[in-house]
């Protein structure tokens, strides 16, 4: 699957004083790919992701997102990416429809398109009945699915998911991944961090971060072969064991 490159970094580095949170990471992500970004707590995943989203300026190195430079074109990057944070990021005191329309609105989408698309979306998610209910009243699994749908509502080129399935049961997690696959098939590149190794298996390719550097990067099958492991859990343990930074 040799398609266009949508994320490209070269020796991307972030230092906070003496501490190098992210140390010269270099990788490419292709269009429509589901890219797993793995690592123990404190390995530097979130910092790296923040740089890619334009939330934080890199200390050195290069990166382009959807063809735009992370130093100079953050505004253009922001228009082309979606983001779902670790914390649940919808407004609990707004209804489902209001949430969807709000995010559509701040991305500057056309009002008519927002209207038709938001109706379509609640139907797809099977939330038609609850469309006017406050988000507060939804079960967590539904909230997460809704949050993901909202993150890709404006049809971004890339969507960044920061541990999207924390605290969600396995069945709902599976359903969540169905949504991710559907998005990837539409050509949206998915950049996802996770702690669940079964989820890692769902990704096309995985990078393993240890102490701010990328220690391994390949498809799950190749990684297992390379480390002589039966599953991703073992791969993760082998790599993370060498970590100097504590969790």
């Amino acid at each position, binding site marked *: 699957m040799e398609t266009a490159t949508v994320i490209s970094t070269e020796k991307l580095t972030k230092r906070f004083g003496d501490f190098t949170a992210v140390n010269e990471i270099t990788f490419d992500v292709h269009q429509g790919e589901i890219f797993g970004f793995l690592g123990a707590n404190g390995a530097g995943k979130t910092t790296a992701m923040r740089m890619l*989203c*334009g*939330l*934080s*300026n890199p200390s050195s190195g290069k990166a382009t997102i959807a063809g735009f430079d992370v130093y100079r074109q953050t*505004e253009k990057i*922001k*228009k082309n*990416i979606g*983001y*779902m*944070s*670790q*914390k*649940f*990021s*919808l*407004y*609990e*005191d*707004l209804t489902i429809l*209001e949430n969807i*329309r*709000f*995010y*559509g*609105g*701040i*991305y*500057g989408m056309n*009002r008519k398109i927002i209207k038709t698309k938001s109706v379509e979306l609640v139907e797809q998610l099977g939330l038609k009945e609850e469309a006017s209910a*406050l988000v507060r009243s939804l079960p967590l699994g539904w909230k997460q699915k809704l949050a993901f749908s909202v*993150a890709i509502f404006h049809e971004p080129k890339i969507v*960044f998911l920061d541990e999207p399935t924390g605290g969600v049961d396995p069945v709902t997690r599976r359903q969540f991944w169905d949504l991710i696959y559907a998005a990837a098939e539409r050509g949206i590149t998915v950049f996802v961090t996770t702690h669940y190794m079964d989820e890692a298996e769902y990704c096309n390719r995985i990078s393993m971060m240890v102490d701010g550097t990328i220690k391994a990067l390949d498809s799950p099958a190749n990684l297992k072969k390379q480390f002589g492991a039966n599953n991703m859990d073992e791969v993760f343990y082998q790599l993370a064991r060498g970590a100097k930074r504590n969790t």
Partner: protein
Amino acid sequence: MKQFIAFVKKEFYHVFRDRKTLLLLFGMPIAQIVLFGFALTNEIKNTSIVVCDYANDAASRRIIDKLEVSANFEIERILMSHQQIEEVFREGKIKLVVVFPANFNNDLTHLNKAQVQIIADASDPNTAGTLTNYASSIILSYQSELQGLQKIPYQIETDIRMIYNPELKGATNFVPGVMALVLFLISVLMTSVSIVREKENGTMEVLLVSPFKTILVVISKAVPYFFLSLINLTVILLLSVYLLDLPIKGSVLLLFAESSLLIITALSFGLLISNSTNSQRTAMIIALLGMMLPTILLSGFMFPIENMPVPLQVVSNIVPAKWYYIIVKSIMIKGLGFSAIWKETLILVGMTLFLLVVSIKKFKIRLA
């Protein structure tokens, strides 16, 4: 602009969904207007007064000496004619005038009965009441001094006149105070809490990743509270006019314009607080301690600033509510126009600009 409207709309949803807070916001000014009806009286020291002495005899001079010696009064001038009294009051510095009629000593020694007139500026009824009490008791003490000497029932009658606010309506004092308090409280507290709530919920991150400008996030947050505060202001004014019979003497438009300025000052203050903290609880504590107490204590609304120790008087200058309080009193009670309050207005504008620049700078630093 479309994005901005979408955001403001969302902020209004937040405000209206939170029924309890909304009730509090609208209930508070009403409750305070009613509560502060029982305003406090306080000791007043070194008030400048004027004496009008037609008598110029032993008894009148003795009483003038006693007034001068007391800690409460400082005699600024001794007038010889009645015409000047009104002039003195209009200047605003003098709150009390004591008038001795001609033949004061004569009346006292021969008729055993004499009159003293005390005239007070009652636009601040608490002060007026307290001052007249002080003056009466000093005169009374002179009377008993005489009695102790001669065992004759001397009697000095005090005739008390209140000008500007003859019915001694306390409302003249506390309505402007409540206005300052309520507007400031709501704007500071609610903006800071609502911005910090986005941080706490993790939605701020999502907003920062979106192409929506951060400065607009802040402005859209302020919009609903700006309107809520204006509604509150209207309620307070209606209550004071129709319930407390306190008319607005000056321009209502000017009053609203100046109030809008104070609201903006308060909103910038709230923004500054929200930049310095990440939890709603901390924001609330800072807002309450850092703002409510100084507003109550140092705005001049409950305790006269002139009586405070000099360091506190200096500190009171950085309390925006103090300047607003002066402005509102000038417009509402004295009926003065913009030319009388441009200085105070300028100070508020300066404070607002300063707060805005600092908080926006801080906001940017946090994003880097």
